[in-house]
């Protein structure tokens, strides 16, 4: 049966697929970092794409990648809320962000060389250990390569918040990294 309506729906599915599937790896990467579990990430990405397809009519031609990632983020947050209470956002995150000024937390400046030694598994571990919403900020910027504007859209937060979370996330990561490197050297 090839009614007009039929081909219109196939056309819609095709348009969605062509627009959205190219970003699958990026969306999957974000899911892996947010959920820290392969099976959960798989499920979340599936749910994300189905939800995005349902809402595709409401999508008005702006950049699709941050739109998809915002949906993925909502899917992940809802699942966390279902399991064990909301991710650390809102008032608690604000308190964490205000906790102490950035410059007091810096370890002594180490050789930049230490930080450049690449070890994907170790870095992944350090990223996983970052609390939310800091892990999310640094993954969106440094792994997914989104602009500040796009990150703001994905997080549903103003750019100022994005910048302060990113600054703090990088400080935390840097400190954890240096600690790790120094421990390794003393083994």
């Amino acid at each position: 049966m090839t009614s007009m309506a039929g081909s219109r729906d196939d056309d819609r599915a095709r348009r969605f697929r062509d627009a959205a599937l190219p970003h699958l790896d990026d969306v999957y990467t974000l899911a892996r970092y947010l959920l820290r579990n392969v099976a959960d990430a798989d499920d979340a990405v599936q749910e994300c794409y189905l939800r995005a397809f349902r809402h595709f009519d409401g999508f008005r031609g702006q950049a699709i990648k941050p739109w998809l990632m915002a949906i993925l983020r909502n899917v992940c947050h809802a699942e966390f809320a279902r399991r064990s209470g909301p991710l650390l956002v809102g008032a608690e995150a604000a308190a964490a962000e205000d906790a102490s000024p950035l410059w007091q937390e810096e370890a002594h400046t180490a050789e930049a060389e230490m930080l450049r030694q690449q070890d994907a598994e170790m870095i992944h571990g350090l990223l996983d250990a970052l609390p939310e919403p800091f892990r999310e900020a640094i993954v969106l910027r440094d792994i997914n390569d989104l602009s500040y504007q796009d990150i703001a859209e994905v997080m549903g937060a103003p750019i100022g918040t994005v910048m302060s979370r990113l600054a703090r996330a990088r400080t935390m990561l840097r400190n954890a990294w240096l600690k790790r490197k120094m421990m390794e050297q003393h083994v």
Partner: protein
Amino acid sequence: MTCEETHILLHALLDNEPDAAPAPELEAHVASCACCSARLRDYRGMGEALTEPGLRYQAPEDLRGRIERALLTTASQCPRANAPGRRGLLRGIAVGSAVSTALAGVAAAGAPYWRTLFNGFAFGSALSAVAAALLMIAVIRPDQDQVIVSDVVSAHLRSLQANHLTDVQASDQHGVKPWFSERLGAVPPVPDLTSQGFNLIGGRIDYVLGKPVAALVYQRDNHVINVFVAQDEDAERSPKLATLQGVNVALWSEKGLNLCAVGDVSAKDLQDIRKKFEAAA
């Protein structure tokens, strides 16, 4: 520019975001400040390390395949409305009457709930013209309400997974109202529905359109109703009924609240429940 300001703004230099911070002033400060230039150097090093390809994942091939197949299935099984003007829920969503049984089966097997939902879409038997006539969909605005209905149905089906109907158990309003007050800063109406045979079993926080809402859970025999209550100053929806994936949904507004009652019960039952809520508000 002070060191304190630079500590946050220098990231705009790192990230090449000229609109986020005044580059000339930043660069001037960094050039004349040893600690900030050391910091910038460190973060550059860290940024380079983060470009490591091993930190980026590729979606597994079978995930990609599953999504592609689901899109094609959903499209080809979308029920056709004979009247070209008929829009709303019938468009673009595969709705299955067999779905809720299938869902129950898969859920019992212990599959994660997302797989459950996904399998429901893949099964998607076509909505017959007779079933369509029974839908009683009043005008559903294509964008927002369609999204709300699908969100609350997803939330309802999720909640039916074992152990997650309620976070607070109570059989009357006094058991749940303080719990919601503490968590949401607001108290939903919690009417007594025992005259329809529904007993309150408790409540939880759930998420609709990404926002936390109160979910009240009532039960009659083995049928569960979730009533989702969200605060909205502009709430002014006239009552509507919808159905999706084998469950019925009633949507309505009361002063400052949007409510959705969702369950595997008749539309008439949901309308009676709505009236009880309206009387209790």
